[in-house]
């Protein structure tokens, strides 16, 4: 209680001080995000503990207001269903983790040289490199994924090319392999990996490299002892910015994957739009959030460390 009272007193003092205007400035975005981001997450929890029914909307939440007044009747049916059919849901969770983690590593390997190149270049070269990274980020990811479909589908350019070379006799079904999902995630998320890496790499003082070279360090030593440690915050931020949203990706496995690449986002989508079992879809969202809360909390930690450096 003392904690709450101290907060109330501070709030009161801030509201009555000359900072009242600034305080209100902060309250507007805070109220917006609370209403449209935090409360909806509670709503998901409420529906996941509710029950399914025929009608509009097709569920009864675990708590809320009805004609008879407030009610609170949570049940764990949806979670029980997830447990009963756990293999149907664990496999997509495994697929999501595997594909998101794999593509995160590919993004890191491809993004690091780009970020380093941009950080060490000057003027027009640096600007062009950065614009080339930003350009795809600003254009539709749906259309970029669609472009990958054109490349990898059975009559696509890759298969045409391989058939032409005589390396294969029948077209490869690339769209039912992990490689197409990796390709899709990389084309969508690569810029998100480059930008935080660039932000840390550009701040490394170049005299450090000179000093290292003067003292006889090889390129590898310089990289391992200066570049990599100083880029750590950027690596962590970039990896999380790719991994977390990729875990719940719907569009990429839907358009670029087969049954072997079934991921959580696609399962949730199917429960919601096809089976119309909203409580189960909500329970899946809660499950996904629980799994992702580990990296999300880590991101908050990493962000704080990045601010400090």
């Amino acid at each position, binding site marked *: 209680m003392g904690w709450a009272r101290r907060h109330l007193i501070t709030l009161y003092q801030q509201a009555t001080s000359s900072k009242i205007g600034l305080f209100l400035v902060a309250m507007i975005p805070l109220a917006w995000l609370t209403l449209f981001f935090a409360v909806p997450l509670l709503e998901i929890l409420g529906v996941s503990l509710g029950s399914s029914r025929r009608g509009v909307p097709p569920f009864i939440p675990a708590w*809320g207001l009805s004609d008879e007044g407030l009610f609170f009747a949570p049940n764990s049916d949806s979670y029980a269903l997830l447990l009963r059919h756990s293999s149907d849901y664990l496999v997509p969770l495994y697929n999501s983790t595997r594909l998101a983690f794999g593509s995160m590593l590919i993004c890191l390997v*491809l993004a690091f040289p780009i970020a380093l190149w941009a950080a*060490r270049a000057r003027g027009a070269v640096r600007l062009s490199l950065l614009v080339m990274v930003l350009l795809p980020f600003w254009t539709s990811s749906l259309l970029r994924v669609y*472009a990958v479909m054109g490349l990898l589908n059975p009559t696509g350019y890759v298969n045409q090319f391989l058939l032409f070379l005589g390396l294969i006799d029948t077209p490869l079904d690339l769209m039912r392999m992990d490689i197409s999902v990796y390709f899709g995630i990389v084309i969508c998320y690569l810029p998100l990996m480059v930008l935080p890496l660039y932000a840390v790499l550009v701040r490394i003082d170049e005299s450090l490299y000179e000093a290292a070279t003067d003292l006889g360090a090889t390129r590898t030593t310089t990289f391992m002892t200066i570049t990599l440690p100083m880029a750590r915050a950027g690596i962590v931020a970039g990896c999380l910015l790719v991994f977390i*949203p990729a875990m719940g990706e719907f569009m990429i496995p839907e358009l670029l994957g087969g049954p072997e690449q079934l991921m959580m*986002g696609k399962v949730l989508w199917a429960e919601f739009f096809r089976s119309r079992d909203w409580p189960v879809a909500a329970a899946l969202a809660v499950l996904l959030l629980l799994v992702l809360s580990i990296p*999300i909390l880590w991101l908050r930690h990493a962000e704080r460390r990045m601010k400090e450096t």
Partner: protein
Amino acid sequence: MRSSLPFAAKILAIIGFAVLYVPVTLMIIYSFNAGKLTSVWSGFSAKWYVALFQNDQLLTALGLSVIIAAGAATLSLVLGTLMALSLERIGGFRLRWLLAFLGLAPLVMPEVVTGLSLLLLFIGMETLFGWPSGRGIDTIMIAHATFGMCFVSVIIQARLADFDNSLEEAAADLGAGPLTVFYTVTLPVILPALIAGWLLAFTLSFDDLVIASFVSGPGSSTLPIVVFSSVRLGVTPEVNAIATLIICIASLAVLVASLFMSRLILYGHRSTETDTDTGQ
């Protein structure tokens, strides 16, 4: 002396750029293909583009998407600016950590979760207050503004961190009120970031498929929703053409914008270059 990039690293960087650009380039080239087959070249033709302008469903969806994106971007800009100012300029208010966290989480939240949670919120609000009645343009705009404001805030925060607030303090010491300080000092400095933020929020809204699918109602199918339903059926020259148009227009806008904001792109964070620049 600057250390150059090793050869192997340059190759990796080029592979990275190839991944980003080769599929889209091929798609653009084949959108001018005369034949129905999408990977066999059979002569140049712009007929798929002509067909687009006779497709009423696409044109309606395009108009709707532009309206939603413009509204969502404007809302994002206002909210995102307020958020960035609160995070960078209000020293030590108690709920700062909460705002910082809530401003960051939507950036990484999987879209299916955001979409589903907002839909459930809108349904809950409708039962409680009778608003929003059904889902359509307004609900999509709110949903897009919620993540758009976070991107806007990130961009403006970077700009605010760039110039130290002694200018603002000096103005305040000389007797300017908070609003005067904002309009005469802060606003001109963050203007490029405001433009960049609005454009980014616009394109994010314009491109969003997943969240819009959850919170749209009958009759409010945005362009990505319409395009997605045809993309699902496979690669066709018509979709190549619409995709080419959208990507080219977006790229042109980005290129023009980046000419104006080259400084912001180059020195996204605290740097001596920008400090001396704004200090003058």
